[in-house]
């Protein structure tokens, strides 16, 4: 039997609720956006009921400590078809087992969840490291990103705490939404495709007059701090995989 969900956290939690209520045996969980109808499998579309989702979330909160709830949420932000299945199977396993079952790394879903969460955390960490703001002429610090996973919710508080005295925008160009901090609070923003394009390639007059200088100084610094006698390209690329170079001011030819 196929359980079909819409991909929201609510729908995922409701699928868990539904499974315990109806006890259909082995099901295969599918997400609408990845779903291709199959001929011989009965499909059950999971109905989203916020109060059921809430009960499941609270239940998980009683079974798992904060670290594991965070892993659960991170895995959800991976947004892959496989991640949804892992979350579903993991939750069913936790609810059917004695307390402490999350420590059973011998269980494939526990291990998979821990590993997926780790990947998402790594992407979060990389964004915190590799984001490079550009100061615009109206004194706003902007950066566009296209992370592998949906990490904006995870990096928000880091940037809010750190850059409390400057206005900034971090925009996810892949998922078409961003965070805007206005010196008071962070809110979600959406740009038109046209706006996304201009922000990605700002004209010189749209940037603050010092922007070019500091980018250049940083570029210089990156070169000066290197010790040529120790060159180790393999290690360098391992730490800064090439797909992140597009973010990095120090990798641009100015």
């Amino acid at each position, binding site marked *: 039997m196929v359980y079909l969900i819409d991909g929201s956290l609510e729908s995922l939690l409701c699928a868990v609720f539904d499974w315990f209520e109806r006890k259909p045996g082995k099901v295969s969980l599918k997400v609408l956006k990845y779903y291709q109808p199959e001929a011989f499998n009965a499909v059950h579309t999971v109905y989203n009921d916020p109060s059921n989702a809430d009960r499941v979330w609270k239940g998980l909160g009683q079974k798992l400590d904060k670290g594991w709830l965070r892993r659960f949420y991170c895995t959800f932000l991976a947004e892959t078809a496989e991640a949804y299945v892992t979350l579903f199977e993991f939750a069913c396993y936790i609810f059917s087992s004695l307390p*402490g*079952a999350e*420590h*059973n*790394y*011998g*269980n*494939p879903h526990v*291990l998979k969840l821990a590993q997926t969460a780790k990947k998402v955390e790594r992407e979060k*960490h990389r964004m*915190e*490291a*590799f*984001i*490079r*703001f*550009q*100061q615009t002429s109206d004194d706003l*610090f902007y*950066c566009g990103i296209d992370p592998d996973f949906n990490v904006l919710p995870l990096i928000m508080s*880091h940037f809010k*705490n*750190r*850059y*409390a*005295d*400057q206005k900034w925008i971090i925009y996810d160009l892949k998922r078409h939404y961003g965070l805007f901090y206005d010196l008071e609070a962070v809110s979600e923003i959406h740009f038109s495709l046209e706006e996304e394009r201009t922000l990605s390639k700002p004209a010189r007059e749209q940037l603050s007059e*010092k922007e070019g*200088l*500091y*980018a*250049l*100084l*940083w570029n*210089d*610094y*990156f070169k*000066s*701090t*290197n*010790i*040529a*006698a*120790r*060159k*180790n*390209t*393999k*290690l*360098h690329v*391992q*730490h*800064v995989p090439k797909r992140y170079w597009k973010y*990095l*001011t*120090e990798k641009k030819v100015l």
Partner: protein
Amino acid sequence: MSERIREKLNILADAAKYDVSCSSSGGTRKNDNKGLGDSHASGICHTYTEDGRCVSLLKILLTNHCIFDCAYCVSRKSNDIERAAFTVEEVVSLTMNFYRRNYIEGLFLSSGIFKNADFTMERLLKVVKKLRLEERFNGYIHLKTIPGASDELITEAGMYADRMSINLEMPTESGLKLLAPDKSHQDVIQPLGLVQNQIVQFKADKKLIRNVPKFVPAGQSTQMVIGATPETDKDIMQTADTFYRNFSLKRVYYSGYIPISNDNRLPLLGSQPPLIRENRLYQTDWLMRFYGFHVNELLNDINPHLDIDIDPKLSWALRNLQFFPVDINVAAYKMILRIPGIGVSSAKKIVQARQFGKLRIDQLKKIGVAYNRARHFIKCADSPYQLKDYQGTQIKSFIMAESQSKYLKHDTQQLILF
């Protein structure tokens, strides 16, 4: 104007790069004044140099003018190089502007000694005070303690810096005397001790009075240059061990000497920096700090040098086969940690997972154990029955054949930690 600042930055970053410490961890400053910056306990590497080192701090000298003539240092008085000096304002605005763009976690400020120690320390202090008090900067600040500066200046600097460090430079007193006759380890021990006592004092006060200010919250570190003088690995690590214990150091850094001079007391210009050796020393340092090894287990009079072809953990295991094989399903955590091919995180997973049933080979592999290496040292639920006991040398050759030792290839620079 922008050309001059570029020139200064190039000179003073270049001169500072030989200090390899890069850590920005242990900072705990919260951004509670709506200023700029918030230090992460774990630190962030914002980029990596092409030699693979983490870049998290703007690492510069205030000036490379120096009245001393230490043979191993590019800034030494007798060296014919371009000299430059930043103003206090220049350092502050570079730091603020780099930080605002998310290039860095903070500032690492050091300096050559101009005029005298106190004069130099005073200038460094001016920079950090301006950053903290005027600019409300809460990012990370690592400040070099200038040997010979007064206790008052050092103590005041400690109120604003997250970490302070002062370099031992050479692993032994005799090595140091050879290359820098004006210096002694005592010049380092005295300020390290002063700062350490103050850290302890401030912590004790904090228990009684809540709003005692922070004092060097990320602790102290030091650096030793490796391979410039003829110390053994045992000398080096015993010095490190002593300093870790006596001054509660957060880190000791080992910096393979990079030939910068044709002084005949030093390795020739153009000779390769001892990168593998440096890597082995870091591995040993990790084993001491995180794996429960005592320095004497790893290095002693019989084995005063680390193996170059295998890492120190494997090398210890091969010398101590009487402790193996270790039964994964019953052994104590601290013994599991000692198995080659098993790191801290796999060891933790193993002790959690085995409560749910005996672990098998495929589970160990999934957990992240380097099984090809570990299998010579472990027993688990489905370990194949082994008829004969192998000798250490045989095991070593199996492992080396399998890993086609990355360390023995000509390309000796490609290193990893464990």
